[in-house]
C-alpha cells in the first residue's frame, strides 16, 4: 500500500546570485517500509524530508506536481490543515534531541501535552499512556523520567523520549532526520532497534535520512541516494554494496574499512554529468 507519493518535488531558495535549487525535481513513493535517503551535506536530503511537512523556512519555496498522502495532496492544504497532518499523521524526529525539547518543562509535562492535544482524555489516563510510551522505547524507570528535565537526560535517552513523543499520536509516517548522528555508536544501535521495532509493529512508513551508508544499508528496506538535489540511484538496501552509480560506489570506497587496509583511501572524483543524470532504475 502506498502511503506517500512525491512527484516532481523542487525546493528553491532565491539568493542575490540567482535561484538556488536545493532539491531538483525528485519523485518517489513510500509504502509501509523503511526508506533510507542518503547523501552528503548539501545533497538536499534534509530539505526533502522537511518539504514533505512544508517545514522549509522562508525565503525557501516548495514546488511539486504532487505530494499526496492517503489520497490528499499536501500541496493544496491550508496551513491549518497542514498543522493537523504534522504530528497527527506524519511525525518528524530531528538530529539533536537537546534542541527539540523545552528545557524548562519536565519531560512528563511535554509528553502529556502532546498526548492531550491529540486525544480527549483525563490527565491520569494521559499520564499512564505516556509512561507506557516511555516503556515502549525501553527507558528504564519511566516514572522518574516523567518528572525529570531534559538536561538530566543523556543524548540517547533524549532521542528515545523524542521518538516516544512523536509516536504518541500514532502517525502513519515517521520522518527521521539523522536521528542518531549526535549519539555514540553503541547508543546508536539501541535507538535504531527501538525505532525499528515500533515502526514494524505499527505498520508505519519510515523515511530515514542519513549520511551514513552502512547504517542505512543495515537498517532500511530501500535506499535512495541523493546528489546535488537529485536522486541518482535507488536500490534495495541489501543490494547497496552492488550499487552501480559511480557516486554511490565512490562513497562506499571512500570509507576506511577494517578488513581492507590501504595506505590511501579512494577519493571521490565528482563528475558534472551526475548533476544532470536521470534516475537509474536498478530495482
Amino acid at each position, binding site marked *: 500500500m502506498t502511503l506517500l507519493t512525491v512527484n516532481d518535488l523542487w525546493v528553491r531558495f532565491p539568493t542575490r546570485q540567482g535561484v538556488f535549487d536545493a532539491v531538483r525535481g525528485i519523485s518517489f513513493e513510500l509504502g509501509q517500509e523503511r526508506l533510507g535517503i542518503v547523501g552528503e551535506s548539501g545533497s538536499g536530503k534534509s530539505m526533502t524530508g522537511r518539504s514533505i511537512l512544508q517545514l522549509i523556512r522562508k525565503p525557501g519555496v516548495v514546488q511539486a506536481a504532487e505530494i499526496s498522502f492517503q489520497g490528499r495532496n499536501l500541496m493544496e492544504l491550508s496551513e491549518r490543515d497542514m498543522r493537523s497532518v504534522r504530528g497527527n499523521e506524519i511525525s518528524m524526529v530531528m538530529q539533536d534531541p537537546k534542541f527539540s525539547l523545552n528545557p524548562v518543562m519536565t519531560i512528563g509535562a511535554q509528553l502529556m501535552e502532546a498526548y492531550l492535544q491529540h486525544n480527549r482524555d483525563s490527565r491520569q489516563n494521559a499520564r499512564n499512556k505516556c509512561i507506557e510510551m516511555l516503556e515502549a522505547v525501553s527507558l528504564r524507570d519511566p516514572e522518574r523520567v516523567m518528572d525529570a528535565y531534559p538536561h538530566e537526560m543523556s543524548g540517547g535517552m533524549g532521542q528515545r523520549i523524542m521518538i516516544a513523543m512523536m509516536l504518541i499520536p500514532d502517525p502513519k509516517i515517521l520522518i527521521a532526520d539523522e536521528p542518531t548522528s549526535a549519539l555514540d*555508536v553503541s547508543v546508536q544501535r539501541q535507538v535504531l532497534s527501538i525505532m525499528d521495532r515500533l515502526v514494524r509493529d505499527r505498520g508505519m512508513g519510515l523515511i530515514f535520512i542519513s549520511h551514513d551508508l552502512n547504517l542505512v544499508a543495515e537498517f532500511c528496506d530501500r535506499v535512495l541516494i541523493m546528489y546535488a538535489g537529485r536522486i541518482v540511484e535507488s536500490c534495495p538496501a541489501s543490494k547497496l554494496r552492488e550499487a552501480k552509480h559511480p557516486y554511490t560506489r565512490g562513497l562506499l570506497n571512500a570509507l576506511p574499512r577494517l*578488513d581492507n*587496509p590501504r595506505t590511501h*583511501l*579512494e577519493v571521490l572524483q565528482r563528475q558534472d554529468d551526475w548533476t544532470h543524470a536521470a534516475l537509474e532504475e536498478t530495482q
Partner: protein
Amino acid sequence: MTAINVQNLDVWFGSVSAVRSVSFSVAQGQSVGLVGESGSGKSTILRAMTGLAPDWSGTIQILGQNLTGSTRTRGFFKKVQMVFQDPYASLHPRHSVDQVLAEALHLQGMDAINKRTEKLLNDVGLDPRFRFRYPHQLSGGQRQRVAIARALAGEPEVLLLDEPTSALDVSVQAEILNLLTDLRAARGLTYIMVSHDLPVVAHMCDTLAVMQNGSIVEMMTAQALRAHKAVEPYTRELLAAST
C-alpha cells in the same frame, strides 16, 4: 626514539575527574590513536598536553621536554601543533585564509611570509585562489585544510589530531585522511589521533588505545585489531558496532 611519553596522567575539571592514570608512549614518526565514545577522556589528554586543560598530574614528556602546569614555551608550540574537530569553529570568522596563515607564520617567527603562505596552501592542496577567501566562503573540507596548513606553519614535529574528520562528509574525510597520511610521510611527523571512529583510527594509526571512562582499556596494534585479537569486551563491543 620516544617522542611522547605519558605516565600516570590524571586530568580533572573542578571536582570531576576526566582522565585516570593513563600511560602510553609514542615513538618518533609513529602514529597512535585514542579511540572511545564521548566522555571517555580522549580529547582531554590532548588538551592537557597543550596546556588547554590546566589541572593535571603525572608526567608528560614531549620531545625530551618535561611539561608542567598549563604554560608552554614558544619552542613547544613550534614543535607541537593541534588540529581541531570542527573546522567551522576553529577558524576565526572574520579572518581570511591569508590572515590566518600569515599570522601563524609571524607568530612562529618565520620569514618570507608571503612565499610561505603560498607554499602552505600548496602543501595542503588548496588552490591559490582560496587565499583571500573568508571561512564562510569555504566548504568544510577546505576549512579543515586551512586548519592543517595553520598547524604546519611552524614546521612542527608532532601533530595532535582531535577528531579531524568527524564533522566532514565521507568523501571529504577520505581526502583529508589521505592528506594527513602524505604529510606524515613527507615530513616524518608524529601523530596522536583522537577519534570515536574505529575504522578511521585503524586506517591512520599503527597503534591504538581504546578508552572508556577516562582510562585506557586496551592497547594494541592496528594489525592485531584487524586480526580480531581484541581481548577486552568493550573493544569487541565497539568493533561490533562499527562494522
